[in-house]
């Protein structure tokens, strides 16, 4: 062994050097992205953190205030807690619905044999529509007098409610409109379903394992990483919900759809209080970070990665 190693050394050195050169080329190739990341992501990120310690009006004198923005937000601003609570409520309903419905749709598309291409396109199509167009469509659907939704309800004898004008219903309306774009999540889960080896199901069927057990013991575990990924991205997008609320309800009625992202937006672009808005963004960042970490840790209990040998399995083998 030693002999071989010693003999190989010069060659390894040489290969190392050329690897380094090759890496330089690789870095040069990805440098546009790296520079973009430094200037347009990391730079603003650090800058906003600095800003959050300042009283920073766009016009006029800026002054260092330390943690004052954070203190005032957490302890004196009821709007902060209200908007945060609305966002948490939204996320608590939106995230499970988004995943369960995407999963069911993906399952359907996976098994369907008739016109599967058509259905796949039909379900994914809404995700392609950009935010403003989507909101315009939904404002027509929800309109009290002329809306499609209340028109359809009238056929079954229901006098449709004032969807966007009722403080209790507006948030429901926004959840429904948000769920319309679940095509992306659905597509990820569908890809996951397609990647599960057929042999597993065949073996299970041969052994007489019933369908529901195949779902619980094969499909769900094999889909684990995909579910975890969609779970985390759904949480993040739920916390960043802005477009629909901003355009469909403007945060109303009575602030019932005043999301946290909108609170930050207003502080920045309505009140031009940039430092306070930056502090809000960092609070959001920390909340999302903690939630994601929590989910990741929790996921160790239920997500199974193929090719990953668990520690206790290893011990058993030894």
């Amino acid at each position, binding site marked *: 062994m030693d002999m071989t190693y010693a003999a190989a050394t010069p060659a390894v050195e040489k290969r190392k050097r050329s690897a380094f050169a090759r890496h330089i080329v690789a870095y040069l190739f990805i440098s546009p992205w790296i520079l973009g990341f430094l200037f347009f992501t990391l730079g603003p990120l650090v800058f906003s953190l600095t800003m959050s310690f300042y009283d920073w009006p766009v*016009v*006029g004198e800026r002054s260092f205030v330390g943690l004052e923005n954070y203190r005032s937000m957490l302890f*004196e601003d009821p709007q902060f807690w209200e908007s945060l609570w609305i966002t948490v409520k939204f996320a608590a309903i939106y995230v499970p619905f988004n995943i369960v419905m995407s999963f069911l749709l993906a399952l359907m598309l996976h098994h369907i044999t008739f016109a599967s291409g058509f259905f796949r396109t039909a379900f994914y199509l809404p995700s392609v529509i950009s935010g403003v167009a989507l909101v315009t469509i939904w404002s027509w659907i929800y*309109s*009290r007098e002329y809306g499609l939704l209340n028109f359809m309800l009238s056929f079954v004898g229901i006098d449709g409610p*004032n969807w966007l004008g009722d403080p209790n219903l507006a948030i429901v309306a926004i959840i429904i409109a948000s769920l319309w774009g679940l095509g992306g999540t659905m597509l990820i889960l569908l890809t996951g379903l397609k990647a599960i080896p057929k042999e597993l199901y065949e073996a299970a069927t041969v052994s007489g394992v019933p369908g529901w057990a195949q779902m619980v013991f094969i499909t769900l575990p094999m889909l684990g990483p995909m579910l975890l990924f969609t779970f985390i991205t759904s949480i993040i997008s739920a916390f960043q919900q802005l477009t629909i609320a901003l355009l469909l309800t403007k945060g*109303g*009625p009575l602030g019932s759809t005043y999301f946290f992202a909108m609170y930050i937006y207003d502080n920045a672009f309505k*009140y031009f209080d940039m430092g306070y808005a930056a502090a809000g963004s960092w609070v959001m960042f920390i909340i999302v970070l903690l939630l994601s970490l929590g989910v990741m840790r929790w996921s160790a209990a239920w997500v199974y990665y193929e090719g990953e040998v668990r520690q206790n399995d290893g011990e058993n083998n030894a």
Partner: protein
Amino acid sequence: MLNRKSIIGSLMVLAMAGTATARAEEILRFATWDTDESLAIQQEIAKKFEEKHPGVKVQVEPYADGYDQKLIAAFGAGNPPDVMYMWNFPQYYTSLKPLDDLIAKGAAEIKPDDFPKGLMNTVRVEGKTYGMPSGFTTQVVFYNKDMFAKAGVEEPKDGWTWDDLRAKAAKFRDEPNKVYGFAVDAKPDPYDFEQFLWSNGTKYISDDGKKIDGYMNSDAAAQVLDMFADMAKTQEAITLNLGDDTSGSTLFKGGKIAMFQSAMWSKSGIDASGIKYGVAPLPKFGDKTAHSALGVSAISIAKDAAHPDLAWEFVKFFSSPEAVAMRVNDLPVRTSVAEEKGMTKDPIYKPFFDILATSNSETHAFLKNANWGKVQDNLARAIEATMIDQGNAKQHLDDAVARSKRLVK
């Protein structure tokens, strides 16, 4: 070779021509929030200015709906327009040029006394003048003469009260046809809404800008809100902006409401609709004097304007009798122009000017406190909540005051 030389040669000629024209023309940037007709009028005024100042080009920049965002971005980037429309003086005044010295120097030409005192109040911060008014509107009540004649209701008169308005409005109520006497807005612009508090003897915030408790939530303020809520409840008025965005002017033009409280900005649309209408002053609360909100378009000069002297020439021209007379979409800010045009006697225009005379003793809340924008959002919510609740104004206003405590110190 020859070819290339001739190309380089012609490029050089072009470049020289370019610098020559650039030197001949001085470009003055002027930002406005107006669109359509009002914008066209300002472009006309700018053209007149160019005629009087050869070699000057006025670049009119219409920012429209995104005005505040675009303007503040321009200031933030250190590249503001030379001259701009302005209303939010507390937000910008540190970046604007004070005009008092210039006005004093040019007093013979400007005739500062020709501008009503109430209008000049809206362009001052901490005693200094940062803009010149160029157009304005007060608030009035438009009424449909045909509907009044048909219903046999007597038309409003000078000095009428809210009780009078309510009694008249009740006579138009026709639920099956969705016809009403008046419209109340669940989401009024709080800026304009303060006129009702003034008219009822109170205001949003103390004159030193430090106290809202006992002002915004005073009994007099709650009385105003409760009155509007009650008008909605008794269907003397239809409620606007409650999950439905049909505008009051659409209803008025369509003959669905007999009276409509608004300002100059509704007039050209009502004219175009062809209905026969009259204009009444804002009603009074009992025997108290009615006050109106003042919507003023002023123009200001950036402190770091690229062409400060030219900018001042432009501002002077913009508020000169000649330019003021050209603005037919709002009202003349110069008393002399209004009188010359006979507007102060014309029954359609008279109510706008009459109330201007009594609306110079109060100052709009946003001029008193830098945080007013945030306080105002809490207030707007209290107004909306009162309209949804059809009452309980005091409770909602108390809530708004509590929520705003942090902002008013």
